């Protein structure tokens, strides 16, 4: 079974809705119009581009190209994490920590799923590998950037508390304990909420897409369960690692709080 094909005209029609929203936002002075239209255009271009890349990649199935695409996706996600922080580390540390924690938390998971759970031949078949990694990275990116932002924001706001705890002889890890817990929680909340609401309040996007594209609902549901569990694990571990490493980077070798390592973006 195949999906009813969408034409350029169909998509143009729908894009008018976003334009209308942008127009409405003008008199309301939301200062969102340019951002909204820009983001919609960017989304369209990026998705078209990845569509062409995937089409070509599915034909080629070269491990080298898949690996290059995976690395490109990872680095873009790392850059996005750094860009989303209100206060960010100087000298590329936000990018480095974000990229590292996403790599550690998503790549092994993707590998494990492709080889042992899905078990396709060859395991790197792009039809599975690329969307799976994309889902994992996208969600890990959200978790990591939320947790990271909360960490840097809270330490900035509560620097006197953190330093008072240091004065009382606590090490950096103890001095951050409440802040770290709260940061990790806020990074994980969207994932937990999405799992709670799945199927009752919302039909997750991936499953909806699959069903619209003609898959049997139960197959789509099984894949959705797989993806959601993977997403929870991937973004959870990623957030924990990023908040831990980011916290450490706020202190120097003598465990002094060094907030001058942050800059306002």
């Amino acid at each position, binding site marked *: 079974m195949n999906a009813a094909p969408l034409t350029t005209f169909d998509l143009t029609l729908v894009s008018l809705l976003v334009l209308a929203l942008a127009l409405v936002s003008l008199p309301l002075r939301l200062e969102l119009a340019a951002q909204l239209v820009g983001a919609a255009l960017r989304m369209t271009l990026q998705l078209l581009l990845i569509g062409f890349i995937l089409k070509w990649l599915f034909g080629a199935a070269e491990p080298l190209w898949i690996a290059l695409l995976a690395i490109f996706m990872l680095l873009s996600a790392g850059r996005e994490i750094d860009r989303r922080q209100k206060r960010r580390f100087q000298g590329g540390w936000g990018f480095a920590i974000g990229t590292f924690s996403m790599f550690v938390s998503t790549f092994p998971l993707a590998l494990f799923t492709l080889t042992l759970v899905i078990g396709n031949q060859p395991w790197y078949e792009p039809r599975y590998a690329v969307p799976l990694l994309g889902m994992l990275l996208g969600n890990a990116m959200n978790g990591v950037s939320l947790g990271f932002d909360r960490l840097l924001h809270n330490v900035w706001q*509560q620097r*006197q*508390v953190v*330093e*008072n*705890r*240091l*004065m*009382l*002889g*606590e*090490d950096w890890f103890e001095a951050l304990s*409440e802040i770290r817990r709260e940061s990790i929680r806020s990074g994980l909340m969207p994932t937990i909420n999405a799992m709670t609401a799945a199927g009752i309040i919302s039909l997750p996007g991936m499953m909806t897409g699959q069903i619209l594209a003609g898959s049997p609902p139960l197959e789509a549901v099984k894949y959705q369960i797989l993806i959601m569990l993977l997403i929870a694990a991937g973004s959870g571990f990623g957030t924990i690692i990023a908040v831990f490493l980011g916290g450490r980077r706020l202190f*120097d070798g*003598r*465990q*002094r*709080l060094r907030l001058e390592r942050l800059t306002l973006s």
Partner: protein
Amino acid sequence: MKITAMPRLLVTGLSYAHLGPFDFYLAAGKTVFLTGPSGGGKSLLLRALADLDPWSGEILLDGRPCAGFTAPEWRRRVALLPAESQWWHDRVGEHFQVCPSADQLAALGFAAGVETWAVNRLSSGEKQRLAMLRLLRHRPAVLLLDEPSANLDRENRERLEKFIGDYQHRQGAAILWVTHDQEQPHRVVGRVYHLENGFLQEVQSA
């Protein structure tokens, strides 16, 4: 009173935040007052001594260099009481690993049961006295006090001064005490250093 020949805290060529180099010492069981205008670097000096800000030079505690301690160990031995204490849990007692004894509480004018009090209902003076009590939990050898009695009425100020004096006497602790109160050096015996325009001078000997 315990008196030892070697200073508890020996500071040589200490530079921090464009100030210094300074040389001075704190003797066991003795108090040194630090005066000077606001913004002159008094609080920063205490922060450098507690190894909370980067500094250069040499700081020895009982002959052992700062680098010979881990940072948390050092701060437990050289304890800093900030001008404004912070309380991050809901109840007073959660900030103490071991609840203070009734004697200690009474010495600072608190009835038993203060550990169940909600932090957000404490007055600034109560916070200041409880922060003093909290500071002693690791039995520091050096106390760096940033205007510890600034928010206190006369009765509580005298209680606090006596409390600090008793601790100093028992432990042989060396104290560096930042004050704006002209009378304090007369009530509590000690040398006085003055920090102004980047110069640290001894203006009164004990």
